[in-house]
Each structure stands twice: as C-alpha cells, then as structure tokens.
C-alpha cells in the first residue's frame, strides 16, 4: 500500500520534473532562494554547532523562515487566499531529498543517454556511499531497493566518457560518493636518485628501518656491519634479505641500511619491508611476487597493553588459596 502510493507520487513527480529547467536544487535551498526573509541566517537556525550555519549545503537542517509577504515587494492585495507552495512536489513525500536527487539523476540520464560510455573497469575508481551512510547523511529512511535503483543510475552516469562528461553530472554524483576516497590516496612513488639508490622505509613492532637499495652484487651492510654481524640468528638474516631472496635478486642488488629501535626480530622484519619497498622502486612489476612472499604489508601488531587485574596482557595471577 505504502509502496504503491509512493510509486504513484514518484510517477507524478516524474511528470512534474520535466517542467523544471536548469539545476534541481534541494528544497530548503529553494526556500532560501525565495528570499522571503531578508537574512538567510536567522535566529531560529536549528543547527547545533555555532558556525555550521554558514554552509548553505543540504546537510544543515533549518526551518523555513517566516513568510513576510510585504518584504517581497509584490503586490498581493488582489489575492485573497495565498499560501506558499514548495517548488518540488516531493516536499510532501517521506523522502523528499532522496526523491529529488533520484529525479535529478533520471533527468540527467534521459538527457545524456546518447553520450558514449566507457566500461566500468576503465572508469575512475570511486568508493560509493553505502545505504547506511547515505541514510545517515540525508536523514531519511531510504528503502534499500530504491537505493539500489538509484545507484544504478549513478553508476551509469559515472560511466559517461570523461572527456564528454557534461558539467552537471559530477555535481549530481557528489552526494553518492564517500567523503573519504581511499582510491585517491595514492602513495608517492619512491624516486631513484642520481646514484641509483632507492630509499625504502619499513617498520615492525617498534623498529624502524631505512634501506637504500642499489644495483650491485649482493653485499649487505646494516648499521655499518655485515649481515652476519648485525644478526646472530640465521633466520633473522634471511628475514632481512627475504625480498631479494624471494624474487631471485640476491646477487643483483646491494643493500645499505640503518635500523633502530626494538629487538632483533623486529629490526630484521622492519628491514624486510624497507628492502621490499626500495626494490619495488627499481622493479615495480615485482609487487605481486613480493606480496606473495609477504614482504609488502606492514604487520600492525604491537605489544598488547597490560590490563589491571592481570600480571601481563593476558596472564592471570597465580591462584592462591584464600
């Protein structure tokens, strides 16, 4: 019943939206545009933060200002019964903002459906908002099935060839993108300096290692010492040069490293990461091989904190009778 009535509203709105031209703005913005009250910022602003009110975006919730028909300057004397009507009919639906943006997207699709598209894999990678995030943002209980349909439109619009993408499209997609885009966080590439050295930095536990890797014959110096002097345990030595060993590059590169902090195991494994990163600067194609060898990911584990009532992090005190 509910769904059918909403569908009715949506179809009705579909017909309506064709009459609008230009950009589809959120409702409250349109109310502001009416300029019925002289300052946009009123004392009845409901925002909880003091300075948030200056942003006139869709996120801030504000009540419609009091109607002041005199200030509008229009001669309304001949009108006996007047009431303001919202620009968008979706004002009376349960999900006004969502419906607005849905309709806007539909309109865009209709307008630009003949533009060439690229495959989804070639399009710029974007982290889209999840349903939960989107609901939280607009404060409306958007139905999952509606959201999925909406996202189909979003993704279709996103596939428009970037060179031919019209101006309004990106703005319309913006509310559906996550605020933080992990894919845009691209690490800075490690340069190879004029001596052919690449500097990689690796960490493990509380050790920090810096490794300069240069093409050579397999010599390794760590803190000015040979590998054998730096690490008494053969296992640690193997850890330190594991990226080179795993990719069969032991005799192709020299390593000069500084490592500090932590114990021997931590230092050795910090070196693994540092050497791997520097090696990747020389040969980026080795990344899958190094990832398989476990040399790319930083191990985030640290010492577990001690808890009260325990002797260490987990150890319980000895049982004592009475």
């Amino acid at each position, binding site marked *: 019943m509910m769904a059918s009535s909403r569908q009715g509203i949506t179809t009705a709105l579909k017909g309506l939206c064709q009459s609008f031209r230009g950009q589809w703005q959120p409702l409250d913005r349109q109310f502001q545009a009416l300029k019925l009250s002289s300052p946009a910022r009123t004392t009845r602003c409901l925002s909880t933060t003091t300075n948030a009110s200056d942003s006139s975006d869709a996120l801030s919730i504000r009540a419609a200002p009091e109607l002041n028909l005199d200030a509008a300057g229009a001669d309304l004397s001949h009108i006996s019964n007047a009431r303001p009507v919202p620009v968008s009919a979706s004002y009376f639906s349960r999900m006004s903002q969502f419906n607005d943006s849905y309709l806007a997207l539909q309109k865009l699709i209709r307008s630009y459906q003949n533009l060439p598209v690229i495959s989804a894999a070639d399009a710029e990678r974007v982290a889209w908002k999840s349903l939960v995030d989107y609901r939280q943002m607009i404060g409306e209980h958007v139905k999952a099935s509606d959201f999925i349909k909406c996202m189909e439109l979003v993704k279709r619009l996103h596939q428009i060839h970037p060179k031919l993408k019209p101006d309004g499209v990106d703005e319309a997609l913006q509310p559906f993108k996550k605020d933080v885009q992990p894919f845009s966080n691209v690490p800075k590439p490690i340069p190879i300096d004029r001596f052919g050295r690449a500097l990689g930095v690796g960490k493990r536990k509380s050790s920090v290692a810096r490794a300069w890797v240069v093409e050579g*014959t*397999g*010599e*390794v110096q760590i803190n000015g010492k*040979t*590998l*054998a*002097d730096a690490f008494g*345990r*053969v296992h640690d*030595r*193997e850890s330190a*040069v594991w990226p*080179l*060993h795993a990719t*069969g590059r*032991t*005799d192709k590169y020299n390593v000069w490293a500084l490592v500090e902090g932590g114990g021997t195991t931590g230092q050795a494994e910090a070196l693994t990461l540092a050497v791997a990163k520097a090696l990747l600067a020389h040969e980026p194609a080795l990344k899958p091989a190094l990832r398989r060898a476990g040399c790319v990911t930083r191990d985030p584990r640290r010492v577990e904190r001690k808890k009260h009532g325990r002797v260490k992090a987990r150890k319980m005190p000895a049982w004592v009778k009475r």
Partner: protein
Amino acid sequence: MSAPNCLRGCLVQRPAGGAAATLLRHSTVMPATAAHFSTSTPLHGNMMKPQKPGPKSKVLLVAKQWKKGKVADRGGKSPLPGERKAFRKRILLSNNNALPVEGLTYIGPGDLLDHKNVGKVMSIPDAAVDQLRTAEVFKPTQTWSIFRKPSMLVRSETVDLLNRMHTALGKEKALRLVIAGDRITGKSMLLLQAITHAYLNDYIVIHIPEAQELSIGATEYAPVPHSDPVQFMQPNYVLKLIQAIRKANEKLLAKMTTIYSHPDLPQNIPVSSPLLALANSAKEPESAWIVFRALFQELTVKGHGRPPILFSLDGLAHIMKMSEYRTAAFEPIHSHDLALVRLFTDCLSGAVSLPNGGAVLAAMTRGNAPRVPSLDLALSRRAAEQAGRHKNQLPQRPAFAKDYDDRVEAVLQTVELLQLQGVSKPEARSLMEYWAASGVLRSLIDEATVSEKWTLAGNGIVGEMERAALLTSRF
C-alpha cells in the same frame, strides 16, 4: 638437556618394593652428621614425624627422592672422570657416511704456493694428518666430522701467506705475522694450512694450540732457576709440547745431530748425537724446560742442515695480559714472564731470530678472547701502517687510559698483520660444490644459491656459510 635425563633417572630408580624399601634406601642417603635443621619444610616435617608406611608418606618420599636424585643408581656405567670432556673435545676427521668426492687431490709440497690452486678444495695427505693431529692443530669446533676425509679450501689469503713465508725463507729470515679477522673467518684454519705446508716442506713445527692453557692457571708452574728477573716455567705443559714436537717431527729430528754439549741436562747427550735423543731425554716434567731450551738452541743454529722453524700459537690475546698465576709474594705474574710465552713473544717481536728462516705466526681468536686494549691498538697501528698511513697519523692511546700495556705494544712493534675477511664468490662456489659432492648440502649449486649463502654469511665468512648451509638444524 637435564630434564629428560632426570626423568629417565627417576623412572629407573623408582623402587619396586614400595614405601619400606624407599625409606630404607633414603635413610642411607641422609648423612648421619646432618644437622636436624632444614630450611625445606617437607623435609623437615618428614624428619620430625615418626615415619609410617602409608599412602601419604609414600608420595612424599617418592617426591623427595626424585628431588635428591641418586647418581649411583643410574643403571649403566657412569662416565669415568675426564671421559665427558674427552668426548666433548674429541676430533673426528672422517665420516664414512659422507660421499667420497671425485677429483679431490692431495696437497703436494708446493701446491699451497701456487696461485692456480686458489679456489680449489684439496685434501690433506694422511701423513700430514697424523702430524697435525699430534700437534693438536685440528679443533673440535671445525666441521671435519661430516666429510669423508680432511680437505680444505685454498684461499687467496692462504697462497698469499705461504708465499710470504717462502720469500722470508729465501732471505733466511722469519716471517712474523699476526692473523686477525672477524669471528669464524677461518683464522685457525689458515694457521692449519700454514702448518700443513710446513710439515709438507720439512719445517720443524712448534705449535701451541690453545694459548689460554698457558695463562689461565690450569697447568703447573715453577720459577726457572737462576733467572733474573724471575721467569716461570710450566713443566707439564712443556713436557707435553716436547713430546708432540718429537712425535710430529720425528724423521727430521732423527736426521740432525747436536753440536753443543748440554751439561745441565739430566741425561748426558754427547755432541753429534741425534736431536731425537735430545728430545727423548725429556722424561720428567722437572727437566722438561731445560730440554726444551736445549732443543730450541740446537734448532736455531745457523747452517748445519737445520730446517726452517714454524713457531705458531692460536689465541694470541690470552698471552697478552696478566696471567692467573701468582708469585710467591702473591703478585700477579704477567704472561710474558712465563718462560714459554716469553720465548714465543721474543720470536714474534724479533728479539730472538730464527736464522734458518721460517715463520712465527700468531692467530687471534674471537670466541673466548679477553679484551686487551694494547693488542687492539697495536694491531690497528699495524693495519694503518700497511694501509700506507703516515707515522704521525697512526692511532694513539687515549690520553687518560690506564689499562694499556707497554710490553704488549713492544712485542707487536714490527709484526705484519693479515686481516682475514670473507671468501670471494668463486671460492664460495667451489666450497659449496665440495659440500654438495660430499652429500651434506642437498641443493643445486648455481649462481643464485651461492650468492644467497654468501650474502647470508655476511659477505662470505666461511664459518657463517657453514652455519647457514650445513648446520641449519643446530641453530
């Protein structure tokens, strides 16, 4: 190690006869003179209470017996005194499980001088093996016991050292040299190679295998009569040394004859009797030092068909400090006041010359060596000199340092220094191929494997290569 032993012992000695038997046995263990006081509560309680055979006291007694342990009841023969040490120190030079390596040649008299042999693995001839064993040149830490027969890698340093020895021999001078280097770089092995070369080329070899045996106070000592300032001889050690020299160099000693009369010897050795007879006259520790002096005097005569001498010592740092011995006035004795050590240091410093040529070699050790600042300083000065530094730019003593020793620095004033490092990659490859051929290293020996082990071993340190490649299960 001790836990399984203990468990085994306890299981064996657990009495079958029940609590009564346990009690009886235990009462024999407790000494009658023991005070009736114990800090251990269960033991104390047990002694105070009248002991009744019952389930409770049985448990207590068994527990007590487990704690005490009884050596005599182990079941099986316990090792005799010294047997464990002998087992620990035994030297196995062959292993029939290892594969015989084809194409392995024996070292000839001139082979270690030939640059063509650098990077080859060669076997020690059997006669020389016996001599080396007599002189205790092999060490228990070396991995002879996993190969078919004792063989070694000819390094470039080996050929270099032996050529220097050869050149010195031509000039009728002694090469005085200290072999230094990092841990397990093959210092003792290089010494062994030099000694092998010496035996093959009819040198007289006097080798002190462990310098610490002279200075840690483990062997008897006595003042040398009529010495001023007083020196101390170590009669038992010297007797053992003479016997080793006699046995290892028997053929040579038999050929030479004495040219001095030695009136103070315990046994009359007439002039032109064989040196072997002189060496044989050392029967008692009391006369050992006198015989040794006489033997050394005879050997260092110029001409008379005397062979060159190789005087070598392993563990130099141990004789460059105060010894553990004390004078009658309980003053500590400097190692250089021990007569045998003094003879060696005099030879090393050049105060006593070897007129027929030869070498005085001292190998450093990193395993158990005391820190001797003067030794380090002197060697760093020699290294700087060899690197071509000007005399004014040599390392100096710290201004207010106290623990420096003039005598040590005087000894090392003019020695040469051989700094051992890792082997080169071709040498490493040859060595690894030998390991693979012996069946102890089961991997394909190619560029990558060699390079990997070479890197893991701190740029080709031989002992570390062994650790990384052969002894992986041990660490």
